[in-house]
Structure formats: C-alpha cells, structure tokens
C-alpha cells in the first residue's frame, strides 16, 4: 500500500513545507540575524546589550512574566469549568457554547477598548458601583501609580478574551474520553470531584498540554490589551519591540526583543512537554 503511494505524500506536503520555510523560518532567521547586528550592520552583541541596558527592559520583562503567571492558571480553571458545563449536556447546552465562544470573534484591540469603557474613570464599573452605593468617588483603575491594579485589570480583560480557545480544546478532549471509564467510576461509587481528579484530568492530559503550550506562547505576546487599558503605564516585551521598531527606528533592538519573546516561548514549551508527559495508552 505504501509502496503504491510513492512520492505523492511528499508532494502533497511540499506546499505546506514551502509556506512554513518562506513565511516562518526565513523571517525568523532574519530576525535573529538582525538581533545580533548593530545599527551599522556589524555583528556583535551591541543591540542585545542595548536592550538589556534599556531603562524599561526590567519592567517589561517582569510585567510580561507576571501577566503570564497570573493569567494562565485563572484561564485554565475557568476553561475547565466551562468545558465541563458544555460536556454535561445540560438543557440549552447549545446556547452555552455560543455564549462562551463569543470573545473568539473579537480582535485583541477591540476587546481592550471594550474593557477600557468599563474601567475608565467615568466608565461602566465606576458608574455601577457608585449607583448601588458601594463607592462614593470613582476609583482610577487605570492609574500608573498602582501597577498591580493595572495588571489586575489586564488579567481580567485577557481572561475574558482568550479563555474560549482553551475551552474549545478542552471540550474536544473531554468528548474523546471513552464513556466506559466514567461509567466504571460510577460503578465504583466515585463522587463527581473524584471522577474529575482521577479519570477526567489524567485522560485530558494531551489536550491540557496542547492548550497550555498554545496559550502560554500567545500570552508572552500580549500587546494590544495592555496598550488599550494601561497606555504607557505598563511596559510589556511586545510593546517595547514595537516602540523600538517604529518610534525609535532601531530594528536591531526590536529584533532582540522579539528574539527574547521567542526564547521565553520555547523555554515554556519545553517545560510543559517535560512536566506533562502524555502516556501511550491515552492516545489510543
């Protein structure tokens, strides 16, 4: 059978490989080359040193990592419960799927602007809280002087915006768990929590791994939400890369920042692959 196919499979793969090589591998190599060049074109660590010595580098790195560390667990807890709700086949289940998937259709910047209208000083949140009497004066949620509050509102906005994609992956994973396992657990008298902990979560490991890797890589690139909500009050790595590329017109340092984001994404991917090994029997 395989012999009859001959070169056909490789030919069919060729367009994808060419596409990846042209639009992903080549720019990546060019970006790394740029990062190791100075503005005059000579090779060396000048641009990387410039990036490390930049006044906002430390803040950008710490803020990005803080956002990733805070957003991922919250999103996974949320996505897990949303996926379980959908999988439970409750009445009106179809509606739940649409409601949960709504944020998927909105761009990052549009979501950021929506949340600005909620968190701005004369926005929805303050109006509601003052209306029901909890607040006497509006709180400035977007103040650069309370960076943790700023990070908090960015986390909320990101959790709302990006949880759907994790939920969809988990729903697909849940639906692939054979019913017999859950029925067997019922026979042995397991409670719902025990079922989730002992049957669902372990069998969900491949999906969890995929979702974690995907979401973490995207989280390191967080940009538009931070710009919309925090303006210049918070620095993140992607924002710094954009600033060096367009405002300061120094592509080398921008490439250095982009390379840093890539390295952080790679490290976290390897980490997840090591910490969440998937066992053979679950892939059947």
């Amino acid at each position: 059978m395989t012999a009859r196919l001959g070169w056909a499979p490789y030919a069919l793969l060729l367009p994808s490989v060419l596409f990846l090589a042209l639009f992903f591998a080549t720019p990546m190599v060019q970006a790394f080359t740029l990062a190791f060049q100075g503005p005059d074109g000579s090779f060396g660590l000048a641009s990387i040193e410039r990036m490390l010595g930049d006044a906002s580098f430390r803040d950008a790195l710490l803020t990005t990592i803080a956002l990733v560390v805070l957003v991922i667990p919250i999103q996974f807890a949320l996505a897990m419960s949303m996926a379980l709700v959908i999988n439970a086949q409750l009445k009106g289940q179809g509606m739940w799927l649409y409601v949960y998937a709504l944020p998927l259709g909105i761009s990052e910047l549009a979501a950021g602007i929506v949340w600005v209208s909620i968190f701005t000083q004369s926005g929805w949140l303050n109006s509601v809280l003052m209306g029901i009497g909890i607040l006497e004066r509006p709180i400035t949620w977007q103040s650069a002087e309370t960076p943790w509050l700023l990070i908090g509102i960015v986390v909320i906005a990101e959790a709302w915006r990006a949880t759907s994609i994790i939920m969809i992956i988990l729903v697909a994973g849940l639906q692939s768990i054979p019913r017999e396992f859950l029925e067997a657990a019922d026979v042995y008298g397991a409670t719902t929590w025990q079922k989730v902990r002992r049957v669902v979560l372990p069998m969900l490991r491949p999906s969890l791994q995929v979702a974690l890797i995907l979401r973490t890589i995207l989280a390191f690139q967080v940009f538009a939400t931070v710009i919309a909500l925090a303006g210049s009050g918070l620095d993140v790595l992607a924002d710094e890369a954009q600033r060096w590329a367009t405002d300061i017109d120094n592509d080398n340092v921008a490439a250095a920042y982009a390379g840093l984001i890539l390295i952080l994404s790679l490290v976290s991917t390897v980490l997840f692959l090591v910490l969440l090994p998937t066992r053979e029997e679950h892939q059947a």
Partner: protein
Amino acid sequence: MRTNERLHRWRLLAVTAVMALVLAACTADDGASPGDGNGDGASAGDGGGEIVMVSSQLVPTAEQELMNNEILANFEGEVEFVGLDAGPFNDQIQAQEQAGEGEISLIGGLDGEFSSFGADGLLMDLSDVAEDLADLGINETYLEFGKLGTDQQLYIPWMQATYVMAARTEALEYLPDGADVNDLTWEQLTEWGANIEAETGERRLGFPAGEDGLLHRFFQGYSYPAFTGGVNTTFTSPEAVEMWNWLADTWEYVNPASTTYGFMQEPLQSGEVWVAWDHTARLIQALETMPDEIIAFPVPSGPEGKAYMPVVAGLGVPTTSANPEGAKDLIRYLLSPETQAATLSAVSFFPVIESDLPDVGPGLQAEIDAVEAQLNAADALPAYLPVGLGDQGGAYSQVFRDVFQGVVLDGGDPATILEEQLPNLQAVFEASGAPCWPPDPESDGACQAQ
C-alpha cells in the same frame, strides 16, 4: 475499478483547480493597498493622474477621514492620502529616493523633517508654485523657512498649529487668589491643581502621557524653554533639575490615568480632567461640543518667558515624484483660501496665508484667541520643533519620555537621571549631525547637549 479511476481523475482535477486558484490569488497585483507605497511592483493607477500624498501630519484615523471627506473633497483629481508615523514616514521617502522612483507624489511634513530631506537633496524646487501663489500672502517667515537655507523653494508652508491649554469652567473658582487664567505662571498652575484637590479630593490636572500622547513636545517646547531658556544645551542644568522637581510635585495633582490619555479632549469632555495641555487639533472637539463649559487659554509662563512651540507643516515634492504636475496642483489647491478655511474648521490647523478667517464656531474662536494671545505675549518665547534629526526623531523624543518615566512616574532623582540620559541624547546628535535649533544658540556642526 472504473468508478475508482473516474473518482481519482475528478479528485486530481479538483486539487489542480484549487492550486491554480491559490497561485493566481497569491500573485495577483494588490493595487489598492492603502499606506503601502513601497513600489514593489504594485503600480496600479499611477499614470492615470492619481496623486499619492504621504504625510506625517493628520495621522490619527479621525483626522485622515476629515482630510479625505472634507478638506480634499473639492479637489479635481484623485488623491490617496497616507498618514504615517515618524519612522515609516522617513523610511518610505528615503526608500523611494534610493530606488529612484516610486509611488509618492507629494510629501506633507514638518519643517524639521524637510530639513533632513533637503540636506539629502530629495526635494524639487517649487519656486514656480510660490510665484503662482504670491497673491495669497503666504507668511513670509514660513516661506523663508521653506528655502531651508538655500535659494530654492524646497517646501511650501501648508498649515500651522501649536499647543494650548483648556479648562472646564467649573475649575475656575479654584484659581489661586489674584491669578488671571489668561496670564498664569507654571507655579500658579500647580497651586490651582492643589486647590482643586484640597476642595474636591480629586486630581484634575491632565497631560497627554499615553502611548499616542504628545507629552514629549511639552518638554521640548514648553517646560524646558520656559524654565531654562534652552532645551538641548540646558538639558542637565540646575534650572532643568528645578523644572523636573516642579513637574514631579505638580504630578500629585494630575489625574494618574494620564498615562492612558492620547487626546485630552475626551477626558475633558467626560470630566475626568478639568485643566489640560494639548495640541490644538486634540482639544478642538471638547471646545466645539461644549463651548459653554470648556474654555481655551494661553499656556502659563515660566522664569524665562512664555515658551510655546509653533508647529509649521509644509508641502514638498520629491525629485522622484510619480506625478509632479499633479502634486503642484494639489499644493495650489491646499493653499487656496477655501481649503485653508476648511482645514481650520475640520482639523483645527491654522492657515498660513493672509486671509480673513472664516466664521467659525465659538470653540474654534476660543482656540484662535488663545493661540494669538500666546503669539503676541510680551514674554513670548518660540521654541521650534527639532530640525534635521532625520530618522533619529523618535529616539530624541524617547530620551525625554524616559526622563519623565524615571523622575515623575518612578520618583527618581532628576540630577542622576538627567546625567544618565545625557549620553543617549548626545548619541542622537552624533548620529544625525543636526546642529542646535532655537531657543538653543546655533552651533557649528552637531549640537552638543549639556
């Protein structure tokens, strides 16, 4: 067997058709890509008289819309107006120059930007256009600027603007005793903010410190000259330290969400901010929609005078222009009295020609009055936009932003931070070779920042 073969053939045909469609789509000319102008073979519609105008002014989307729908509405001819940020603006024009040809026909930019282009020899002599327009009474000083020190007219002045202050009328009762809002000092502004905070508990001063905000022009054209009499040559002076300390103190009365403000008209309208500084084009909406609640007034004075920054925008034609005749027609159109009036009404950039200003609404009139008060003040001190920085314009402004971040937002020591940033400032001058510009004294060769 036969059915299988037929199926196989249909599948092959289908796959080939799809591949052909995909290839055709990928290689089709993408003629209508706005803002691209990078001449990579997509040359649709050029020879037919379309004029591509790239501009570093009127870049915000709302302003581009007004340019297209109101200002350019009566032009006979097709114009593609492309607003670009400083970096890409410079890149596109330089790229066209290096390639020897391209899509750009007309350039709209600042005096400082044209001086770099002029130095590189990229601009066409427009003396014939200037002669055609002699009757309009174009501002002589600006026309002289447009020669960039040569005997050729390298750009024609287009429009001008500046930065003023605006306030909600409810703030006026908190002015310090004896203070006249049209003749304040910067210290009185701080007192004003302190009074508001003491009486209402809110911080109601506002500055555009957001990502898109023009706060760096505040340092370059207002606070530095007003306190120190210079900008680059007095960068680390004791007066500069005093100025930064003043700003850090004042920031206690500034709305902390200022780091999210790009245009001060919005927070003024919503009442988050009661007293603001910004570009005339970014305050106009507030002044026009709420003329009874929001007023405009000239900027306060500092120890060295009432420093303000005149923004002169001009029109230039690159030597590699795709449509030089069309570009010259467009220049004549934009300088005509009707269009200058439309520009004033639409985007609040003021005319450069002598003409009776049209009947304008109360909001725009308030701005005009504030601008004239600034211009004609006894201690008026014009501080010009950077000249000759080329592609270092962004890096230059970044230095000021970094000092602001370090001193005002992070509470650092001004003297230390200014010393740390001085090398970065000097690097900009070394890279661009730009000499000092007023109010700094003229320098021989690259400006020496101190």
